[in-house]
């Protein structure tokens, strides 16, 4: 029952929270650049405006893929906040990602195809670390279920410091922050035009945006899970600090190449994540 409440709460509240986070993100970025920045509700205005524009698509299939991206981003989060299986959350998130990439492939436009390829490279970069994080949760708590992991009396970050740091690293990729915003960036126009989202427009683009909000909330929930046992305020403060650091990184780094992205993410997953898991395993024996 609590699971259902959590899932429904996520479905209803995540776009609100995610949109606010996006708004705060833009303000914080602006302040870091000595600007004032948009109102905090700006992301909501953007999405509402997109929804009231006419569709202009190369193929209507884009709409379908974007819709499925949103749908499975919601499913992933609902599984997570409903206390469900962590691995299934990761798989569902990957499914959502695949749909988004397909949406970028569908128009067969040079810019969005390169965006799609780069997005796939990013997915390939962060996927091992996400799975390792889920495995780590199991090894520390004996369960893959989020509710059981959440109820665990000691903070996961204590047992899994490496995994936590590794997770923060790939979070940068997943949140599309510099230096890993290869496929599409939040910032002003660039060499790929808008990369992944070049060919999405109007209401279709709105679906993608809202999907990102859901994803952001889910990812921050994952960070929270590692700190949960420290109490809600400490954990929440931790999440805020983590996100602020991501925004800081976004503003002070130039973009890196895909080679560096894949190599560094896999190395980090090996050195911080895998080593951590093996240490937990052998110390237990």
């Amino acid at each position, binding site marked *: 029952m609590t699971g259902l409440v959590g899932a429904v709460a996520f479905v209803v509240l995540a776009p609100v929270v995610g949109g606010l986070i996006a708004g705060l993100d833009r303000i914080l970025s602006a302040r870091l650049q000595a600007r004032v920045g948009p109102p905090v509700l700006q992301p909501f205005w953007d999405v509402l405006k997109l929804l009231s524009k*006419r*569709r*202009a*698509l*190369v*193929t*209507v299939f884009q*709409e*379908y893929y974007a*819709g*499925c991206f949103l*749908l*499975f981003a919601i*499913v992933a989060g609902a*599984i997570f906040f409903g206390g*469900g*299986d962590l*691995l*299934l959350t990761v*798989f*569902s998130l990957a*499914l959502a990602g*695949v749909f988004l*990439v*397909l949406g970028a*492939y*569908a*128009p*067969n*436009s*040079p*810019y969005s*195809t*390169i965006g*799609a*390829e780069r997005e*796939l*490279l990013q*997915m*390939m*970069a962060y*996927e*091992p670390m996400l*799975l*390792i994080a889920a*495995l780590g949760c*199991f*090894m520390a708590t004996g369960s893959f279920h989020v509710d059981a992991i959440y109820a665990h009396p000691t903070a996961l970050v204590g047992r899994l410091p490496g995994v936590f740091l590794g997770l923060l690293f790939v979070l940068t990729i997943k949140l599309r922050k510099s230096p890993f915003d290869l496929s599409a960036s939040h910032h002003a126009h660039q060499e790929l*035009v808008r990369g992944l989202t070049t*060919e999405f427009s*109007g209401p279709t683009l709105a679906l993608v945006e809202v999907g990102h909000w859901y994803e952001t909330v889910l990812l921050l929930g994952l960070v929270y899970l590692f700190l949960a046992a420290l109490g809600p305020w400490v954990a929440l403060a931790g999440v805020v600090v983590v996100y602020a650091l991501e925004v800081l990184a976004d503003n002070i780094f130039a973009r890196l190449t895909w*080679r560096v992205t*894949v190599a560094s993410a*896999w190395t980090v*997953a090996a050195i911080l994540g*895998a080593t951590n*898991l*093996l240490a*937990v*395993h052998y110390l237990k024996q």
Partner: protein
Amino acid sequence: MTNDNGLSYLLPGILIVLPLVPALLLAVVRGQAMRSAVVWTGALAVAAGSVWLAAGHLSGPPLALAFDLPWLDRAVAGAGLLVSLYMLFACRGIVKREWWIPVLIVAQTVVMVLVEVAGPRAERPIVIDQLSLVMALIIGIVGGLICIYALTYMEDYHRHHPEVSDRKPLFFFLLFAFLSAMFGIVFSNHLGWMHCCWEVTTLCSFLLIGYSRTEEARRNAFRAMGFNAVGGLSFGVAIWWQLHNGRAIELDSMAAMGSAALVPAVLIGFAGLTKSAQLPFSSWLLGAMVAPTPVSALLHSSTMVKAGVFAVLKFAPVFHGHTAGYLIALVGGATFLATSLAAISMSNAKLVLAYSTIANLGLVVACAGVGSPEAVWAGMMLIIFHAISKGLLFLAVGAVEHRTGSRDIEDMEGLLATRRALGIVMIVGIIGMFLAPFGMLVAKWTCLKAFVEVNPLLAILLAYGSAPTLFFWTKWLGKVISVPGAARPAVGPLSANEWAAVGTLAVLTVCACVLFPLVSDYAVAPYLARQYAGAMVAPAGVGIMALMLGLLVLAIMAFIFYPPRGQVSARYLAGANMGAAGNTFRGPLGEVTPASRNYYLMGFFPEGKIILGGSLASIALMIVALAAVLR
């Protein structure tokens, strides 16, 4: 544990002999019409036989046939020797650096003779449990469909390749003989018999790979024979070891023996690794791509490589909890990782399929090596899902290749738009291979859970190997679904034979994905309950998987019934679009058609180095595994 009535007593035997009837007929029949009739009848009979057998015995205890017919023993052993001798005879075609192949075959023949001298006897030469039945269904149905598909394919093949001499009678004879030998492998409880059938599959694959008789085909055929002879030798030594120590050579009693059977289990495990093309033996399966597509489909989905993992999986209870088992599992894990990485740089669709086959078999080997009930559950599910979807994909790629003249993934751009049905079929095959909530992923999920409980190392290998899988499948899918960039040559329709095979496999893939809980309950769980004394593995998360599947279906429905409307816009080409549809752009030298290729990242993921690294790791693991059991 005995038989009940006469027919079920005979049915397994009939199923082994049954494919030989069409095989022999096809060897003499000329003319497409007659051949069609025989192939269709034969394939349907084989499929019906396997379904009938499965229907009767899927629930309930294993069917053990106890009989002692010395003449049959001798006949099987004699057949095995004949096969060996024929292979030796075929070795007259080797080149200098292939000297090791006849040496291996001689060694294997010597071992066979030694075994025969020791007088192998089994009380229950044939035992049928759920694992054999699952395999029999795969062989009977998927194998039969591939034979039907081959009918049209081989006609086209000879039209496209006038230089290849037409030996269709031999070809179809071999296809059905292959099925017969596969039934033999999965039903035999007598290791000697299994070994004999094992050798027959090696010989069949040798002849089929070398079908075109080009230099490349011959070399690859010999490589396949040589590598499989390593496994055959290892298999023979395992039997000899058992006899030498006065132990049983019955598969079921060995599997129940636990660590006492570890030495033969590891030896037969090695044989399974060669047959299922695990590193460092993978190159024979890649080389087998020179053969006509039905052969690749047969080798990859329902026969040959599946025999390898079947043998390893049979010994899973022995491997369970043992270092040697874990080391074999790591060979599988290393193979999974290395071949998944290697597949990234492949643009040849058949090579992608080949590497992905090896990777998935690696996963099955890993499951078998870990040997816990969950792992075996995952392993069996992987075998089922993989057989169906991989068969489908091979046949679909073959169909595309025969119509466009290319098996390059880049040339499949816009397939969904230009040839909708074929495109959909290919999409079904691809998403069945890697996406939640479909088949393979259910198994992979259970794998992760089973692996991490033992030691995180294998789970970490799986985590790293899954990422490239996501990459290379999605970019292929992206090509298939994209709007065609340039005008593509029109693609002719598929023949009835091809549709019969491809369509049925597509339906089966969907059914397997939707009905996997039933497959688990009726086939996999009873097997595990018997092997592991009451262990029950229920597929977890069925509810959520079903929910995801339902949502996906709803989304498709919504899309079909309420298609989004709006203005159609040309793709963005920096504003320089040309032409009425705006699909080309104005470049410095006039009109340019934009073309985007997928990323293959050959510099970043060099195939050769990856495979070399994986092979070295596998060899080291095998040596340590052998040392661990012989100590």
